[in-house]
């Protein structure tokens, strides 16, 4: 007979996640009861307050010795704390982008081009639902990398994905494209999570346990049926690789990045990637580490293909959001080399890379929201030419983010790339080092081509202009730019901090 034990929960350690969920529920109540006029400002205030409060409570528990936040289901350790902190900081700066309501539809249910939509635009309606949806997604993202059993992992995956599917469909301009992005993201995301769930089933069949620790000891004991282990690792990897956008599971990301409202793309590209890699690092480092001979060759192959494919295809892109999407695919490849490194330095450099890359991504998409014509954002790269002459500050910021993506010294990207490739090299993957450096060189080509386009070509006169950024967007871009360069010039404090606390507890 199986006895049920009542769970012991450490609320202090769970507080960062619970605060965000509480804020999200509060946001839903405001949607239901507050008068329409006061919603936008109160939602923004609650969202920001929630995220900041959550960050504060995270900082307060950073030195706690106990680690089991919810029995064996949620483990709070140094690496988890750093990843949660990164997600919170990235979400805080991207919430300022969301606050610029110009990006979102006035009434999501209205047909594109209908009278209803026109009336809603005239009445200046706003979809303030984006704030609670964002908070739910952020809560899922925070739970994803600290979940240490497969049930929690699956639920967190869905909590972070479902709001993002909806957010992708809420763009103000090009509604049809935005809805299409939501459909593609949803269908492919649900497809990937079905694989993920099948992987959970096989891992459970292998180890007769759903906790990471249980799987770990089953792998060491080696008594289970290895076919189930292989199938489990393969299927779970499909789900995770889909979320990080690695080849061959990347097909959704260019379309979704392009179709979704840019502010949502920023959050999706930066924070989701951090969360998904956090979970991936944890499950591979904690549960599958001893079975590395079974998955490492496959993940190395995927990392190599992803780097090369992302960098090569990005060259051919004419749309700035698609270009950034392929660049994020290439970065997923670079980050996978941190997963295969399977060492402490691999973990540390992955965390640094994720943080630096996330901040620069939010900033870059922030700039994309500013370049507009009368019909909305201009994402055609040809029409960006001469941007540096018309609005030097915006173009300089964008150039800075591109240089960080390319990994040029004095930006955060260089430190990130350098440390992640050296970690991969130390672990013996010379192939990753060589391919990584080569594809970084290819990638640098198209980043620099955009910079040349912005600064050394004459502006085209077709109504493209840079709008005066709202105070919110200014905050996002300034903070990201400052952080990108600060981490490039003086990364020592953050690196020391990461080194002192990054570790997974088993």
């Amino acid at each position, binding site marked *: 007979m199986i006895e049920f034990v009542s769970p012991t929960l450490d609320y202090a350690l769970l507080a960062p996640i619970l605060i965000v969920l509480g804020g999200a529920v509060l946001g839903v109540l405001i949607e239901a009861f507050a008068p329409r006029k006061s919603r936008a400002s109160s939602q923004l205030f609650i969202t920001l307050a929630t995220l900041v409060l959550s960050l504060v409570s995270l900082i307060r528990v950073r030195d706690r010795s106990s680690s089991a936040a919810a029995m064996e289901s949620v483990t709070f350790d140094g690496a988890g704390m750093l990843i949660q902190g990164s997600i919170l900081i990235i979400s805080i700066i991207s919430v300022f982008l969301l606050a610029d309501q110009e990006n979102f539809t006035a009434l999501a249910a209205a047909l594109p081009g209908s009278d209803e939509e026109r009336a809603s635009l005239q009445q200046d309606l706003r979809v303030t639902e984006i704030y609670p949806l964002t908070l739910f997604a952020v809560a899922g993202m925070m739970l994803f990398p600290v979940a240490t059993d*497969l049930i929690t992992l699956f639920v967190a995956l869905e909590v972070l994905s479902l709001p993002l599917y909806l957010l992708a469909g809420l763009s103000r301009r090009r509604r049809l494209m935005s809805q299409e992005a939501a459909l593609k993201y949803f269908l492919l995301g649900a497809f990937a999570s079905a694989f993920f769930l099948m992987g959970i*089933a096989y891992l459970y069949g292998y180890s*007769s346990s759903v906790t990471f620790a249980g799987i770990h000891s089953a792998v060491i004991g080696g008594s289970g049926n290895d076919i189930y282990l292989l199938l489990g690792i393969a299927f779970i990897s499909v789900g995770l690789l889909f979320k990080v956008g690695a080849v061959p599971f990347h097909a959704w990301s260019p379309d979704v990045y392009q179709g979704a409202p840019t502010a949502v793309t920023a959050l999706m590209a930066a924070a989701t990637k951090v969360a998904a890699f956090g979970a991936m690092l944890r499950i591979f480092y904690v549960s599958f580490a001893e079975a590395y001979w079974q998955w490492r060759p496959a993940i190395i192959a995927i990392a190599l293909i992803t780097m090369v494919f992302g960098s090569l295809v990005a060259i051919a892109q004419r749309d700035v959001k698609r270009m950034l999407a392929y660049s994020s695919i290439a970065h997923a490849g670079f980050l996978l080399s941190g997963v295969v490194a399977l060492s402490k330095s691999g973990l540390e450099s992955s965390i640094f890379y994720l943080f630096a890359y996330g901040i620069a991504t939010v900033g870059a998409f922030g700039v994309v929201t500013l370049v507009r014509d009368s019909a909305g954002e201009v994402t055609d790269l040809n029409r960006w030419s001469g941007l540096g002459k018309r609005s030097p500050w915006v173009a300089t910021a964008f150039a800075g983010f591109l240089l960080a993506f390319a990994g040029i010294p004095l930006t955060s990207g260089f430190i990130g790339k350098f440390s992640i490739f050296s970690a991969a090299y130390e672990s013996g993957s010379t192939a990753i080092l060589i391919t990584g450096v080569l594809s970084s060189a290819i990638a640098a080509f198209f980043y620099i081509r955009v910079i040349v386009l912005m600064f050394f070509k004459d502006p085209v006169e077709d109504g493209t202009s840079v709008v005066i950024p709202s105070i919110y967007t200014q905050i996002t871009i300034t903070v990201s730019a400052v952080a990108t360069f600060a981490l490039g010039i003086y990364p020592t404090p953050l690196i020391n901090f990461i080194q002192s606390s990054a570790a997974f507890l088993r």
Partner: protein
Amino acid sequence: MSLDNYLYLSAILFTIGAVGVVVRRNAIVVFMCIELMLNAANLSLVTFSRINGTLDGQVVAFFTMVVAACEVVVGLAIIVTIYRSRRSASIDDASLLKR
């Protein structure tokens, strides 16, 4: 009857679902195929639960049902919106983003 047969059945259902997602063109049918995959995983979970003699698998199956229900809510909302603006639920028609 050996419990392994349930695992084979689950694998077959999962494959039917996966093939369906790839070859079918109607968004609703694709979505139903995904649900079939989720339920195939559920069947595996409860079978393993029986084989292993622990309850965890059944607990996961309950969570899956809840998650699948949430997915239906979000998914149908998206598909219905697309259908209303295009008068078609075919995923081949939704190709504005391909260039």
